[in-house]
């Protein structure tokens, strides 16, 4: 509950930032843009503190569960948003595209929180290392995919405006077509090797390492199939980059499809049973134990934020004891 509240804290700050950005459609002032940048920066700092705390509490980089990975992904995307916004020549509407994506990812993360049940104790150090590397590569690949998607959206919007000769809106400046296309191209170029390495490590782990502790995940697992489809679309995208006929809107359309597969890959474990995120524990005891661990992490996080170490330790222990009884 406490973590949920704080995810809500920075997600809410991003929503407020988005709201400020949206005011530029109605109020002819740049204050909305300045406020939006300030709120985004604030939300990013809060989320950074939250992730740092999570790392300290769990003793590993938070990329081991879908919930953690999505939090880190949204944090990276917000950093990219801030970087692009502050490096633009004039107040551009980049936040209008990235912030909704960030908020949507945080919402999926919230849904995914209860399904994230990795049991680390069954793996040895070597498998853990490669498991984290697998997650890390895929996470960075996903961040690049999101950037490709967002820049593709900006390209589509600007292209649509210019093709249909619509007058520009005051205060809402989009990046130039060339700029959006360049971001899209870079993002695809970066995403492809990251996803390829991530998936390859995952495949090797599945065949070799996971066999040590149990049976490997079936190749027909929905998550594996969806991730493979996403990789295939990216392979087509990389190929398309070298074909003149596939420039502009067509490449952007393919980027959208790749992003759709990415979202599908994230959310598939929420809809269909998948072995990827660990066996679903059905017994009550296991569920209770997992809930208790989460409760402990939540309360520890609360204590970390408020820095009243002695009192908070007593508070943590008493709540956890209460939970056990």
């Amino acid at each position: 509950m406490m973590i949920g509240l704080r995810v809500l804290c920075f997600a809410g700050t991003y929503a407020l930032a988005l709201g400020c950005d949206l005011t530029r459609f109605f109020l002819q002032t740049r204050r909305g843009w300045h406020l939006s940048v300030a709120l985004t920066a604030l939300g990013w700092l809060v989320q950074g503190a939250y992730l740092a705390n999570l790392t300290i509490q769990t003793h590993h980089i938070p990329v081991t569960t879908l919930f953690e990975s999505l939090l880190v992904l949204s944090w990276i995307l917000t950093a990219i948003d801030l970087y692009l916004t502050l490096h633009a020549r004039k107040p551009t509407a980049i936040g209008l595209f990235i912030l909704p994506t960030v908020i949507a990812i945080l919402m999926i993360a919230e849904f995914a929180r209860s399904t994230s049940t990795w049991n680390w104790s069954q793996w040895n150090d070597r498998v853990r290392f490669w498991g984290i590397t697998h997650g890390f590569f895929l996470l960075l690949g996903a961040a690049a995919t999101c950037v490709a998607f967002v820049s593709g959206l900006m390209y589509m919007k600007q292209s649509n405006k210019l093709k249909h000769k619509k007058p520009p809106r005051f205060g809402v400046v989009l990046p130039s077509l060339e700029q959006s296309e360049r971001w899209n191209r870079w993002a695809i170029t970066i995403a492809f090797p990251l996803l390829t390495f991530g998936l390859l490590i995952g495949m090797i782990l599945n065949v070799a390492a996971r066999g040590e502790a149990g049976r490997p995940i079936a190749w027909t697992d929905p998550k594996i199939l969806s991730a493979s489809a996403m990789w295939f679309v990216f392979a087509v995208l990389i190929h398309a980059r070298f074909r003149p006929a596939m420039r502009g809107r067509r490449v952007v359309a393919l980027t959208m499809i790749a992003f759709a597969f990415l979202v599908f890959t994230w959310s598939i474990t929420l809809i269909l049973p998948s072995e990827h995120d660990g066996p679903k524990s059905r017994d009550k005891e296991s569920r209770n134990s997992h809930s208790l661990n989460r409760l402990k992490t939540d309360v520890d996080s609360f204590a970390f934020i408020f820095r009243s170490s002695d009192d908070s330790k007593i508070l943590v222990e008493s709540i956890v004891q209460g939970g056990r009884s």
Partner: protein
Amino acid sequence: MKLLAVGVDHHSSSPAIREAIAFNESKSAAALESLKTLYPNAEFVILSTCNRVEIYIAADEGTMLPTFEEIAQFLSDFHEVPAANLREHLVKYHDERVIHHLFRVAASLESVVLGEGQILGQVKEAYQIADRNRSIGAILHTLMRETIRVGKKVREATGIDQGKLSVASVAVDLARDVFDTFHDKTVLVIGAGKMGDLTLRHLADLKPGRVVVTNRDLSKAETAAARWNGVAAQFDKLYALLIDADVVVSTTASPTPIVTLEHYQRVQRARRNRLTLILDIAVPRDFDERIGDLDQVLLYHVDDLRERTLANLGRRKKAIDAGEKIIEHETATCTALLRHQRTAGTVLRRLGDYADDIRLREVERLITSCPDLTERQREAIDRFALRLQNQFLHHPRSAVRTAAETHSPEHAHSLLTALKHLFRLD
């Protein structure tokens, strides 16, 4: 506090009159020097642009402010223009109307081209010249600073300066919407007419990597290209030139399109489908209309560009009301600010005098009652009393100064009234 503005503008006078009494920097300095000599207690700023020549004058209450007639005579003498010719064109504003007018000028509501950005720079320059020549005091310093602030505020809040009003500058905006960098781009101008030249003048601000001009008459192309550090090319190589061109400006007088869809499809294939912006400002069209449907090609006709300028003008006109409201409010605030600054100075002076009287009286009484005090002890008592007085008055003084300098006339007024009542300073 008294304010006066006297001058001519594009409503009241012809360009010939404005040119006759225009000031450049050296003339401004000389005129300000003369005005200072004639009216040593007044403050002066001269604003001279293509569309207006105005002298702003300020003085404290009880100080002689030059009259309209005197300023008219000064302008006539300074520029050696017959006073009778000049007087009928001169316009004057008094007190609050001066502030209102100056704010309108800075916000470009008085400009020929509504929302133009140059006037704010010209107001700043006029302020700097007056400051350098020490012809301004506290009143005009405050007024000019407020004017620059209000000029910026109106632009930011209303967007009155947004959107270009000429076909050529709209073309530049479009180029910026399409391309991010221009050092690696080629601009091709087809035709060496006036319109192409004008568009190229604006596009040159983007510093394109290469400018190519082609025309049926090569010598005309060479002349036009030389003006913009470009190269001239023969017209029969048009298709080869189109392959390299990222921005195309076409202005020929051809009665039929010179580039057909089939031809341009081949060009685009040869370009490997790279982005192209075509500005067809010829009437009738030089490019087949269907070329605009191709992916990665943006084709704008002169009518599209003109439509944009009209939309921008309409938007600027809509911003006038919002700008006027801001100016009305800011005029009232600035008037109160100037009044309070003057009043605050007087009140603080009286407060100081009042405190000095009490201190001197009480120190004198103490020293008289203790005749055995040495000179050193008396000096110590003097210093003690002065320090005590200054420390007592420090916070009231700084509170009054801060209130008088901020945009909160109600607060400043209530503080000043309270001070006057508490210490009977009237």
